[in-house]
C-alpha cells in the first residue's frame, strides 16, 4: 500500500518540525561530508609511503660543548661503538633528519643561471656515501654513492654528484627524466647519479614534501644529527643504550631527543593528527545530535499522534503498516535533508577549497555520507516506529 502521497500531504500541512529536521540533516551532511573529505585527505597523507625504514631508524642530536675536542674523530669513534651494539645495522652523522620538520633547503635549477632555468625548492641531507642504505631507501634509477663520491663539503671539495627524489627530477627535467643531468645551486654543480622513486623531505606535509636530495658530504657539527639503523625488533632496546654509551665515550656533551623516525614523523604530523581527532569528534557529535533529533522528533510525533495511530489500527491498519508509515515518513524527510545537504556540501567544499589548502570535495563522499545518513535515520526511527506499531487500537475509544 502506497502511503507516500498522504504522508507528503501531511508533511506539507505541518511543516515546522519536518523543516527543522531537514535543516538539521542538511547542515550535518554538509559539514560531515566535508569533514570526512579532509580527514580522508589527512589520513592518506599520514599513511603515504615516505621511502624510509621508519620502524628501524633511531634519530637523535648530539650537542658537543667541549670546544677543544676533535669532533670528527670523536664521531668516528662514536659511530664505530654504536655499530658494535647487537642489532645495529648502520650509524652515521647527517645534516638533518628526514620527516622531522627541521633541516636545510636549497633552490636548485637545471641551469647554471637559475633565473633562466627551471627551479625547484628542495630539502637536502648531507651524509656519508652509505646514506641510502642507512635510510632504508632504494635507488630506482642510476647508482648508489661510492666512497670516492664523498667529500668534507668545503668549497674546493664540494661533491660533484647527488641522488635526488623522483619528484625533483620530474620537476626539473620532465616526467621520467633527470638521470645523469646536471643540477645547480649557487656556485655548486652536481650530476644526478641516482634517483629514488619515493623519498620524503624533512617537511613531508609541505609543498616540497617530495623534494629532497642526498649529497655525499660527511662533516661534523657542534649540533650534530645522528641516525642509527637497527633491526626493528631490537630498536627499543638499542634506543636505551645510546645515551649512556655516547656519554661514556665523552662526557662534555648532551644527547638530545633520542627517538624513532616514526615518532619524528608523528610529531611533524601532530597538527594533522589533532585535526583528524577534532574532525572525527565533530562528525560523531553531529551524527549523534542528528540521530537524537530524528529519534526525538519521531517520539514526539508518536506521542502527539497516539490517538491517531490507535484510530488507524482500529480502521484496519496492521502493525506493519504503522511501522512502515513512520519509516516512510522519516525516509522522506531525510531524503529532502540529504538532497539539500548535498547541494550545501558541494558549495561548502568549493568555498573551503578556495580559502584553504583543501582538496576538492569528491561527490562520492557526499553520496556515501548521504546513504549513511539515510541508514542512521532508519536506525534512529526503528525503535520509536516499533513503539508506535505496538499502540493498541483500543486507544481509539479512550479519552486521552
Amino acid at each position: 500500500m502506497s502511503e507516500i502521497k498522504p504522508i507528503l500531504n501531511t508533511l506539507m500541512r505541518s511543516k515546522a518540525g519536518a523543516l527543522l529536521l531537514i535543516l538539521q540533516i542538511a547542515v550535518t551532511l554538509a559539514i560531515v561530508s566535508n569533514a570526512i573529505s579532509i580527514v580522508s585527505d589527512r589520513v592518506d597523507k599520514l599513511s603515504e609511503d615516505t621511502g624510509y625504514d621508519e620502524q628501524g631508524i633511531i634519530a637523535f642530536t648530539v650537542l658537543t660543548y667541549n670546544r677543544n675536542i676533535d669532533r670528527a674523530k670523536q664521531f668516528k669513534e662514536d659511530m664505530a661503538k654504536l655499530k658494535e651494539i647487537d642489532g645495529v645495522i648502520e650509524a652515521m652523522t647527517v645534516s638533518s633528519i628526514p620527516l622531522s620538520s627541521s633541516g636545510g633547503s636549497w633552490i636548485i635549477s637545471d641551469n647554471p643561471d637559475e633565473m633562466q632555468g627551471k627551479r625547484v625548492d628542495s630539502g637536502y641531507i648531507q651524509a656519508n656515501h652509505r646514506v641510502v642504505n642507512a635510510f632504508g631507501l632504494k635507488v630506482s634509477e642510476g647508482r648508489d654513492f661510492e666512497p670516492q663520491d664523498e667529500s668534507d663539503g668545503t668549497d674546493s671539495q664540494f661533491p660533484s654528484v647527488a641522488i635526488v627524489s623522483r619528484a625533483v627530477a620530474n620537476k626539473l627535467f620532465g616526467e621520467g627524466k633527470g638521470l645523469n643531468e646536471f643540477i645547480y645551486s649557487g656556485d655548486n654543480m652536481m650530476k644526478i647519479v641516482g634517483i629514488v622513486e619515493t623519498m620524503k623531505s624533512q617537511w613531508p606535509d609541505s609543498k616540497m614534501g617530495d623534494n629532497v636530495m642526498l649529497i655525499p658530504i660527511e662533516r661534523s657539527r657542534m649540533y650534530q644529527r645522528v641516525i642509527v639503523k637497527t633491526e626493528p625488533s631490537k630498536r627499543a632496546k638499542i634506543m636505551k643504550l645510546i645515551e649512556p654509551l655516547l656519554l661514556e665515550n665523552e662526557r662534555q656533551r648532551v644527547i638530545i631527543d633520542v627517538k624513532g623516525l616514526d615518532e619524528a614523523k608523528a610529531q611533524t604530523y601532530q597538527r594533522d593528527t589533532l585535526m583528524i581527532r577534532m574532525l572525527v569528534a565533530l562528525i560523531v557529535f553531529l551524527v549523534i545530535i542528528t540521530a537524537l533529533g530524528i529519534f526525538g522528533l519521531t517520539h514526539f510525533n508518536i506521542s502527539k499522534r497516539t490517538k491517531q495511530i490507535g484510530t488507524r489500527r482500529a480502521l484496519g491498519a496492521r502493525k506493519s503498516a504503522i511501522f512502515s508509515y513512520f519509516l516512510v515518513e522519516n525516509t522522506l524527510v531525510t531524503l529532502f535533508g540529504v538532497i539539500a545537504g548535498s547541494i550545501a556540501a558541494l558549495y561548502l567544499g568549493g568555498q573551503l577549497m578556495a580559502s584553504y589548502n583543501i582538496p576538492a570535495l569528491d561527490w562520492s563522499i557526499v553520496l556515501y555520507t548521504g546513504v549513511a545518513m539515510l541508514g542512521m535515520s532508519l536506525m534512529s526511527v526503528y525503535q520509536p516506529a516499533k513503539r508506535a506499531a505496538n499502540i493498541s487500537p483500543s486507544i481509539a475509544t479512550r479519552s486521552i
Partner: protein
Amino acid sequence: MLNMQNIGKLYQTEMVQTQALREFNLTVNEGEFIAVTGPSGSGKTTFLNIAGLLESYSSGQYMLDGIDVGKLNDNQRSDLRNQKIGFIFQGFNLIPDLNLFENIEVPLRYRGIKAKERKRRVEHCLEQVGLAGRARHLPQQLSGGQQQRVAIARALAGEPRFLLADEPTGNLDSLMARQVMTLLEELNRAGTTIVMVTHDPELARRTPRNIQIVDGQVADFTLYQGTQAPHVNPQMSVEV
C-alpha cells in the same frame, strides 16, 4: 452476526485486578440496531472494544459473522476489522492533517483498494452524508456535526456489515445529535447492523432494542417499538 458467550475481561496491574466484563452473553442478529447503555465504569467501552476487536478478552467465546475471533492473530484481527466493521467514535477521531477525502479513504488504503475505486467510494460516501463539496477541507474547518458525518462516511466507505458507534452524539448539540441519529437509522434501514453505546436515554429509546450493562454484565434488555420500524426479524435474542 455477533455472538458472545461467557465473555470475561480482566484488567490486571501490579496493584489491582479489575473484572471489567464477567460471563457476558449477547447475540446480535444481522440488521439489528441496538443501543447499549449503562452507568460509567459498567463495562460499555470494554464491550465495545472487544466487539470491535480492538482488544482481546480473557475468557469465553466470541463469534463474529461465523468467525471465532479468539483464534485470530493480530494481522487477521486487523483485516477483519477493516473488512467487516465500521467505527464511529465519540470524538470523531478524524486525522487532523488529512483532508476529508484522505480521511475517508484511510480504511480503503489499508484494504489495498485501487485509487480509482477509492475515489468513487469516497465521493459516494461524502454525498451520502451531505458533504460532497467539501472533500478538500480539513476536519478543523468543519462543525462538530459535520465532522461526525465525515466519521460516519469513513465508517461507511469500507461498506461494513457491522457498525460500532461509541457515543456518536456525545460531543454534539441536540440538533446535530438528531441529524446524526437519523443518518444512523437510515443506514440501519439499508441493512447495516449497528451497535451504539450511549448515555442518552432519548437516543436509546429511538433504537428498536436496548440493553443495559451493569457491573460488566448484561443486566436488562428492552425492546422498544419506537417510531422507526426495526428492519430485522423481531425474533432476535439476547441471552443473559
